């Protein structure tokens, strides 16, 4: 649910050689069934907690499941009607556009600032590196709910410290009693800032770890050839980091589209639906308007949009990690 825990990971090690595993397994007839025995419980659990709900979601989107169906348990099959209705609603398209904007802003901010922070970590003394990475780890650890509550307090109109700071800067004018949440675009800016702040540690520390693995010889060679800082970044660092950057972008797009808690707790999608993204939209449709099928249709459209990115991510991941395949 949070970027903190979704990081799939493998400890960097030599993958077991397939031929040897094969020999070990062939040696024992019983062993042929062992993997199925070991994975069986997981398969059953998967079918129950993931398989069934996903099938149910798809089925739901093809039905007309309204408030009455909750009690009768009956819902007529309506084919693709929910989808045509959702796609014919201008609200949906505005929401989609808003979701894309939020996600582009979040991912752009995350990648640029993350890259700068990682480069900074490479250049500073040990004490500064420890200090900055401890700060980043603490931000990473902050539960999203707490972070969101703090955000609300930081930008509280009357007593929020940020309004006070902005007023003191004397650049943007008087911000005392400025209500960020009354304007959709400003509320969205706060939401984006929150997602970027919370997501930054993962991006910065991952990029830092990747930069640390670039051999120093390359930089020495580049320096000998008279390359300046910009050229080194462009011709040495960037090409080597490209695969990591690609994976990060994919993950962050998916995560930012999926983020629900910050938006829901800060604005509930308001004012006037002005901060509603696809996740909030499907939630509202299902649980506020009790149109479970409409909500399911929106959710499925979201999943399908993300599926393209997910497949790209899986391909990259499996191409990198030989132990997986």
């Amino acid at each position, binding site marked *: *649910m949070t970027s*903190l825990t979704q*990081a*799939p990971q*493998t*400890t*960097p090690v030599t993958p077991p050689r397939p031929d040897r595993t094969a020999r070990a397994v062939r040696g024992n007839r019983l062993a042929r069934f062992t993997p*199925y025995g*070991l*994975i*069986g*419980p*997981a398969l059953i659990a*998967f079918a129950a907690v993931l398989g*069934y*709900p996903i099938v149910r*979601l798809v089925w739901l989107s093809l039905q007309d499941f309204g408030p009455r169906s909750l009690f009768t*348990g009956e819902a007529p099959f309506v084919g693709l009607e929910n989808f045509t209705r959702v796609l014919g609603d201008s609200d949906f398209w505005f929401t989609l556009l808003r979701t894309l904007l939020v996600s582009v802003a979040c991912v752009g901010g995350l990648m640029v600032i993350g890259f700068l*922070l990682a480069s*900074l*970590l490479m250049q*500073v*003394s040990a004490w500064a*590196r420890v200090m*900055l990475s*401890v700060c980043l*780890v*603490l931000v990473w*650890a*902050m*539960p*999203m*709910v*707490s*972070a969101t*509550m*703090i955000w609300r*307090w930081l930008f509280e109109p009357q007593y929020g410290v940020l309004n*006070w700071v902005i007023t003191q800067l004397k650049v943007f004018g008087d911000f005392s009693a400025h209500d960020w949440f009354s304007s959709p675009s400003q509320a969205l800016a706060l939401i984006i800032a929150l997602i970027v*702040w919370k997501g930054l540690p993962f991006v910065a*520390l991952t990029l*830092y770890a990747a930069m640390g693995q670039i051999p120093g010889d390359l930089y020495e060679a580049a320096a000998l050839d008279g390359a300046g800082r910009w050229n080194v970044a462009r011709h040495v660092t960037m090409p*080597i*980091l490209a*695969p990591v950057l690609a994976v990060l972008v994919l993950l962050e797009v998916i995560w930012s589209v999926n983020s*629900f808690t910050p938006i829901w707790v800060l604005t509930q999608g308001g004012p006037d639906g002005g901060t509603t993204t696809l996740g909030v939209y*499907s*939630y509202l449709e299902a*649980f506020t308007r009790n149109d*479970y099928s409409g909500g*399911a249709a929106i*959710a499925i459209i979201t*999943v399908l949009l*993300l599926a393209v990115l*997910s497949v790209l991510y*899986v391909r990259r991941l*499996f191409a*990198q*990690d030989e132990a*997986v395949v």
Partner: protein
Amino acid sequence: MSRMRRKRAVPNAIAVLVSLVVIFPVYWMFATALKQPGKILSATPEFVPWPLSLDNFRTALTHGPFLHYVRNSLLVSVSTVLIALVVALGASIALARFRFIGRRAFLVGLVLVQMVPGSAMVIPLYLMLRSVGAIDFVPGLIITYMTFVLPFTIWTLRGFVAGIPLELEEAAMVDGCGRFGAFWHIQLPLLAPGIVATSIFAFISAWDDYLFAYVFLKSQNNYTLPVWLVSFQTSDGIDNGATIAASAIFSLPVLIVFLLIQRRLVGGMTAGAVKG
């Protein structure tokens, strides 16, 4: 040496500045929570809380059955992690140590389901729980948390199992250990740190969940800590000091755990996540 030092002075100064900005919201949480309640609503904010006061914490803890919410949160998170571990351990060994038909498909599915948003899962899960009468039933939440904890746990443990050199097990088996003996005496002890790390992450993801708990728990007595935190109000309406103190209470355990494991975290976890 002095040239080196001068070269680093500017980046170091930037790092100090950046650290201050990055950590400020966390600092502000503790600073606000520790202020005297009367000083929280002031036109000019006080950046260093003095004198310190625990009044906000007292309000947060005594308003409503706080320990009850802790119990609910712990019950759900701990059960989720334990069940997930039992199911995931076998699966992760199968995935890391055996080649079998359907293995690749399972791995792909494992990654893909982690990309499905919670806001999509929540609709069918709601109808499922409702049909068995498990809405507003705290243990019912465990099933819903499995949807994200289980794939994560299997995937992560698989990485740790794959990290144990196969030679060790083979050597044990040559010395007369059975497959199970090799697992029990060799693999499991080596896997222990990985199991602990995975459990911590799985626990935190369940501990942090707001969406599912918010949708599936209705009565106040059944709230978990995140739902309690967001809905926190005293009889006088919103008490900012107490709310922020409540956030601090909720975050503190996670912050401490992260600080303890941070060396490992920064080195290993991120490097493995998206290695190039």
